[in-house]
């Protein structure tokens, strides 16, 4: 019996060992594109529904340029799923990701490869064709772990019909105005619940309305201090931002009482319409102003009269007005990519081909990410889109800093914000201090 056990263990160990030795060395020599065996390149992306179909339609152009190549573009694969595939030894050739926040994490763990050997290799590219902002969110510690492919910029959308009805003409530019406007635009049902919300400053309202990254920009709150430590308690911007949110909820929805307002908003958020079609609340007229990415332009119903503006900013930060949060879809070469050299061809083609970038920008209303494509005369975007092109090119615009803990940088502060906006945390400074300590613990843990 003992011998059987021994044999079984040995067999298993052998199998495991044989399979774990995969090559890591990347060859960055040029691909012979004239006489190449037919190859299918698999790329996964996060887009779904209509955006997916439109995205898939760009690849025939690549297949024409490289006749040996067939592109298998798989939709609805988010970073959670993509990282599972990589860790399961089942990597696609190229990963297209919405996870700007994951660049540091995946770079650090090696899940995404450093592209520098390819950029400098035989099929290399010139990095100066990307605007500076697009490079900030794709690098981590000198490693270029991703390339930008279309980007997102965030701004304020507002329903001009509702504005007209309330006698408002210009969008709010400061957070104080945002409160005033929201008060005027909000209407209640007879049972006291919200019929039309002026503005919903909750972090869980759709993707972006009251998130830490967007509100953080509005209040000029820094994520890290100069030494790379979390700054939630030390930078007063965070406290100002959350105090403003608290007062907003009490004043606009609670008749002065915070808890009433918070409960009403939570119920309102629970009844939100589908984010990815015209049933979204802005399109339905259920909310008058909201913060969203440039893509919202493609989802609003034709009947909606609306306009866009940069994010309002806190008093004293007027010089920051016009910028915003930017950071969008990126392309990465995963560890274990089956055809690295060919995958790089696809990746760099997507990142730099002007016609493709313009086509995608026009089709799904994202901001193109090379200097040539931004300047292209072929762009045909709705007038409301200009705001986002401007935000992208504004020198003040940025995303969260990249760290080795990835999205965890926001985990603790977001957890506190959730509690705070629901009325479950009363001590603001203590909560921010906790979030700061917890984030620093996580940063320290990642350095081991």
């Amino acid at each position, binding site marked *: 019996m003992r011998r059987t056990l021994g044999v079984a263990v040995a067999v298993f160990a052998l199998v495991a060992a044989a399979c774990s030795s995969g090559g890591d060395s990347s060859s960055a020599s040029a691909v012979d594109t004239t006489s190449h065996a037919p190859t299918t390149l698999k790329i996964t992306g996060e887009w779904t529904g209509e955006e997916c179909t439109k995205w898939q339609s760009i690849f025939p152009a690549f297949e024409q340029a490289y006749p040996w190549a067939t592109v298998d573009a798989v939709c609805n694969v988010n970073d*959670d799923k993509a990282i599972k595939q990589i860790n399961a030894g089942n990597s696609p050739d190229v990963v297209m990701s919405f996870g700007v926040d994951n660049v540091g994490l995946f770079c650090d763990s090696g899940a995404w490869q450093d592209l520098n050997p390819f950029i400098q290799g035989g099929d290399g590219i010139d990095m100066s064709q990307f605007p500076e902002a697009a490079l900030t969110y794709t690098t981590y510690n000198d490693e270029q772990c991703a390339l930008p492919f279309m980007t997102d910029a965030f701004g304020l959308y507002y329903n001009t019909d509702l504005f007209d009805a309330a006698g408002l003409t210009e969008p709010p530019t400061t957070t104080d105005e945002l409160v005033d406007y929201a008060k005027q635009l909000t209407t209640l049902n007879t049972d006291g619940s919200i019929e039309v919300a002026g503005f919903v400053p909750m972090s869980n309202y759709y993707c972006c309305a009251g998130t830490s990254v967007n509100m953080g920009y509005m209040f000029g709150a820094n994520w890290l201090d100069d030494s790379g430590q979390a700054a939630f308690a030390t930078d007063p911007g965070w406290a100002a931002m959350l105090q403003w949110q608290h007062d907003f909820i009490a004043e606009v929805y609670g008749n002065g009482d915070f808890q009433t307002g918070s409960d009403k908003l*939570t119920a309102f958020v629970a009844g939100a319409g589908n984010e990815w079609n015209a049933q979204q609340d802005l399109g339905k007229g259920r909310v008058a102003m909201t913060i969203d990415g440039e893509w919202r332009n493609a989802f609003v119903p034709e009947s909606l009269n609306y306009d866009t503006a940069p994010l309002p900013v806190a008093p004293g930060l007027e010089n920051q007005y016009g910028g915003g949060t930017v950071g969008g879809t990126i392309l990465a070469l995963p560890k274990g990519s089956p055809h690295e050299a060919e995958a790089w061809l696809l990746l760099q083609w997507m990142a730099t081909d002007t016609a493709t970038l313009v086509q995608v920008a026009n089709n799904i209303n994202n901001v193109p990410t090379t200097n040539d494509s931004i300047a292209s005369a072929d762009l045909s975007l709705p007038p409301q889109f200009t705001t986002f092109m401007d935000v992208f090119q504004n020198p003040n615009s940025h995303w969260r800093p990249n760290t080795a803990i990835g999205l965890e940088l926001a985990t603790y502060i977001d957890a506190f914000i959730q509690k705070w906006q629901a009325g479950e945390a009363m001590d603001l400074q203590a909560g921010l201090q906790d979030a700061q300590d917890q984030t620093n613990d996580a940063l320290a843990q990642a350095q*081991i």
Partner: protein
Amino acid sequence: MLLFLSPWIVGFVLLTLAPMLASLYWSFTKYQLPGDPKWIGTLNYRFMFTKDPFFWVSVRNTIWIIVVGLPLRVVFGVITALLLTRKRRGVNLYRTAYFLPTMAPIVAATLAFVFLLNPEHGPINALLRSVGIDDPPLWFFSPQWSKPALVLLGLWGVGDAMIIFLAGFLDVPQHLYEAADIEGAGRWPKFLHVSLPMVSPVIFFEVVTGIIFGFQYFAQAYIVAFNTGREANVGDPQNSLLFYSVYLYRQGFQNFKMGYASAMAWVLLLVSMACTVLVLRGSKRWVHYQGGGFLK
């Protein structure tokens, strides 16, 4: 003999013993996939107990769902089983009705509750409003009410416990009741001194498995968070559904911190073993075995 046992031997070694040893070793390493394990001593355990806020959140949530959910389930299971013990017209129909929700697959049942308890559109809150409760609970959208909502879901599917209790009650020998009748005992004393002791082993079985499963509570919480909040945040709303296994899943299979997840798994193993032993010890006082135990 070996040939007959071989499936189990291979399975035990490859699927139980070797993974247990591996996870014990990994629990002392930093193992961030797709990297390799790196020995860091007891750091995972120290970080877990002293630094990680979500670890304690998940422990509290898990204790809550066991301490509140399990007794309610047992009591409700006993009550419904008692209701079904009497022979009366239509009892089969009642049994089917009581058992119906238990037949529903977990995903379907949980999604049904996500809808039923939707704060705005769900029929439960509509009912509550119609009887004059203007501010009905926000259920899965509120950290105070999300766990009670899951307890309700558990009570709805009480059928599996109920059916075991029912079999237990039906198994109580009739002569015991007759003896009690002769002594002039009423219904309550009969229940307390005859039925309950006779069914206590079954209740005990339910309590032990309930604790073990409580530590492994996962699917319902995952499905609720996935269908009410945003996908990345298993444990939503506000980590109120971040149970131990959910947090372990987040660390192991979303963050891929295999070392940390292994450490959490071993803490879970030790705690759930300790709990089982404690309950086993305590059970001697209240569990009544008719002629010997389960494993004579």
